[in-house]
């Protein structure tokens, strides 16, 4: 038998099926796009597209529903966990996730996220922490680092005047209703892979009915940080991670043996 002489060509990476072909409005190098892609890849791999409903926030990701090829609704600012609660309770077989920025989740939406976790709502939250209000022009967020310059803290965040950054994962992990709470980062390929695994775990938590799940992702905002995209990734690694340590803050024992 004669063996074929031309090697086969394999596609090893392509756009996920759960994406539309719409070009995003995100600034060049903004890792909102990476976070979107990871969610789409996980939904693809789990075969959940037909039963997933996303809840989009107010913030730069306000148009997320245009980029995901699945059912989506748009919430009022900060209210995505409340909306997701309603949808999940009426349609418990559906997979429900919110996608929220730090202004949306940790500022105006603080009450909604805390109570959704306290109630143990069986929803998944993708939390994009870029330490700033991106959409509105780079104002200080509850997550802005001490000393960090923003348009509303032009001399750097003064903790005497405006307080300290809020660590949402640590706080939500204290809730009995929380099943899976972790913090990851999007600053390089290795950490992006780990972020994807965490998103998978969050959705697995929901599919198993183990309560509230959240993946906090440290994300870049080159535009409002006023640095080039690669410098912004360095800022995450060198300045954000020391304030927002990566780690598993709550993992229900039922999930401990699960390998994804």
């Amino acid at each position, binding site marked *: *038998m*004669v*063996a*074929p002489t*031309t*090697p*086969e*060509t*394999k*596609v*090893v*990476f*392509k*756009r*996920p099926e759960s*994406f539309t*072909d719409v*070009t*995003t409005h*995100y*600034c*060049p*190098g*903004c*890792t*909102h*796009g*990476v976070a979107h*892609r990871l969610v789409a890849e996980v939904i693809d791999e789990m075969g959940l597209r037909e039963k997933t409903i996303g809840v989009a926030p107010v913030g730069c990701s306000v148009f997320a529903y245009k980029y995901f090829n699945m059912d989506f609704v748009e919430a009022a600012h900060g209210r995505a966990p409340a909306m997701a609660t309603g949808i999940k309770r009426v349609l418990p077989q559906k997979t429900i996730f919110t996608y929220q920025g730090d202004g949306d989740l940790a500022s105006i939406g603080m009450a909604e996220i805390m109570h959704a976790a306290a109630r143990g709502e069986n929803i998944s939250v993708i939390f994009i922490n870029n330490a700033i209000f991106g959409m509105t022009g780079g104002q200080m967020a509850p997550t802005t680092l001490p000393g960090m310059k923003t348009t509303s803290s032009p001399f750097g965040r003064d903790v005497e005047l405006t307080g300290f950054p809020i660590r949402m994962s640590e706080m939500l992990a204290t809730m009995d209703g929380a099943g899976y709470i972790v913090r990851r980062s999007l600053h*390089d*390929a290795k950490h*992006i*892979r780990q972020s994807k695994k965490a998103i998978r775990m969050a959705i697995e938590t929901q599919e198993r009915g183990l309560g509230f799940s959240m993946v906090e992702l440290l994300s870049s905002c080159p535009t409002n940080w006023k640095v*080039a*995209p*690669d410098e912004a*990734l360095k800022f995450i690694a060198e300045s954000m991670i020391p304030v927002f340590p990566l780690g598993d803050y709550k993992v229900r024992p039922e999930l401990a043996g699960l390998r994804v």
Partner: protein
Amino acid sequence: MPAKGWIEVDDLHCKGCALCISACPQDVIALDMERLTPKGYHPAHLIAEGCTGCALCAIICPDAAITVYREVPVHTKKAPASA
């Protein structure tokens, strides 16, 4: 011999952010300064041989603009002893 690979960059999605360039361990990507995408960015493209199809560029790309291909060797089956 390292696996042979190549990438295709979709002009519709690439925003010339250059993150794929710093992520590529083989240093085979650059922005194409001769061309603009419909949105007015200089797109990324391959500039040399040596791509291994590792997909690190595609993993970092915030716009899912990169498709990665790899040649997989086809194992030669032993010819039968007698014809």
